[in-house]
């Protein structure tokens, strides 16, 4: 299977504090690859390091081309869309201005975005800061989907959202993944189970497991040991 992203020996720090130790993995050119792990293990930092938003070292290749020496805006222009944790929409700008700011190509994918998020169509002139959390997440996703990207980095898109909105966000990601591979950081394992084909598990700033998402989430013992969720199997003693 061809890969869109290769990460080799990635390490990163924030204010001198090491947040990613030595991360290596590949992302297939199709489908959704989930990045899993307990809170604070470096999942978000890994995405931010790939994008050059924090100080980093190691090798990152996008479709075979080294991008680890590039500035963030150049990496994005190579076709990497980013949906950050906590949405980070520009609250003092309208929905339309948020979208316009993200457009990098002559013919943006307006129809796709409008079809995925019809609620935003009638809120174009509304200040993004006055939207609900779910609507802001749609703006954040729409900014990434409005361009023809080669890879999307999506960070906890369902965090803090109501169940109905979680379904809508998952629907949008599922539809988007038909045209672009996605590297998804997600804590909601139901969403991961539904969307992800592959999974990478990070612990202590390192990759500790990779495999099919269904295999990892289907193994109760593995899920408990790596992610700290679910009930520990009765046999096997303390770990």
């Amino acid at each position, binding site marked *: 299977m061809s890969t869109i992203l290769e990460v080799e020996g990635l390490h990163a720090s924030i204010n001198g504090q090491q947040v990613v130790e030595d991360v290596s993995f590949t992302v297939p050119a199709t489908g959704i690859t989930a990045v899993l792990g307990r809170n604070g293990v470096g999942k978000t930092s890994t995405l931010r390091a790939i*994008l050059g*938003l924090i100080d980093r070292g190691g090798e990152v290749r996008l479709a075979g081309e080294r991008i680890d020496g590039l*500035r*963030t*805006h150049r990496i*994005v*222009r190579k076709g990497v869309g*980013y949906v*950050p944790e906590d949405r*980070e929409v*520009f*609250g*003092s*700008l309208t929905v339309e*201005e948020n979208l*316009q*700011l*993200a457009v*990098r190509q002559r013919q943006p994918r307006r129809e796709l975005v409008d079809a995925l998020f019809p609620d935003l169509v009638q809120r174009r002139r509304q200040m993004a800061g006055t939207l609900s959390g779910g609507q802001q997440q749609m703006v954040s996703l729409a*900014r990434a989907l409005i361009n023809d990207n080669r890879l999307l980095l999506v960070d906890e898109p369902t965090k803090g959202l109501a169940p109905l909105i979680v379904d809508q966000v998952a629907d949008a990601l599922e539809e988007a993944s038909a045209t672009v591979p996605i590297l998804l950081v997600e804590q909601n394992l139901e969403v991961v189970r539904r969307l992800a084909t592959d999974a990478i598990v990070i612990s202590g700033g390192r990759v500790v497991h990779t495999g099919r998402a269904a295999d990892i989430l289907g193994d109760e013992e593995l899920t408990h040991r790596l992610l700290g969720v679910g009930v520990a199997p009765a046999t096997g003693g303390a770990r």
Partner: protein
Amino acid sequence: MSTLVLVLLTGIGLGALYFLVASGLSLIYGLMHVLNFAHGAFLTLGAFMGFEVARRLDSTSWWAFAVSILVGGLVGAGVAALTELALIRPLYERHIEQVLVTVGLAFAAVALYEGIWGSDPIYIQAPAWMRETTGVLGAQVPNTYWVLMAAATALLISLVVFLRYTRFGTIIRAGVENRAMVTALGIDVRTAFLLVFAIGGSAAGVGGVLAAHYTGYVSAHLGSTLLIFAFIVTVIGGLGSLPGAAIASVMVAVLQQFANYYLGGTGDIIVVVALAGVLLVRPSGLLGRRFA
């Protein structure tokens, strides 16, 4: 009544001058988080270059005045852009070093200007109308104040239109809010930094030419004096807030003029007291974003 009107209108005129300087400071801080102490040096250079051009044409003609304004604006923009490229850009995210380098540049610039033009004030000439007054409700208001008000109003409208209706304006507004996210949308935010520095420098350069007409002279220290008040109104208005800078400019200058006239020349002290009061009650300024 006429005295009240005169003090009020000259206060608004002085506020207009403060805004010409403070607008650039506020924009630069808002987007780049740089306290630019060299801003006064841009103003002074604009004033000197405007003076040099005007005296070579005919200082008393409107033509020379218009050209001096244009030259002041262009020189201010040029030197500010050069400063951003050569001194500020290599120090991105190193805010203390950026402040130090702008302080150093400010001192060096004054020494340079004194070396070229001397340390004494150079008195300038203006079109005849600017030396006259216009009667308003019995008050004779110097016409220079109307020019200052017109220039500041034009600048404010231009900036609002630019920020609201152009792509670069949208980038700047977004950058003020979240610079990292702007780059994560594939935008080279450094271009916006350069543009903001150039716009701020241009406003300072124009302000320098008009400040020279306000005081009647140019000197190497013209910018340093105005910079103090520009910083005060920028802080009172809220660092990074353009409307805040506009409101605070007028408020501070009117307060200053009233205190100077009715409280025995205590305008400067009153302004500092007002600054302390605002910082105590509302540290983020009138329209600034609250500190987390």
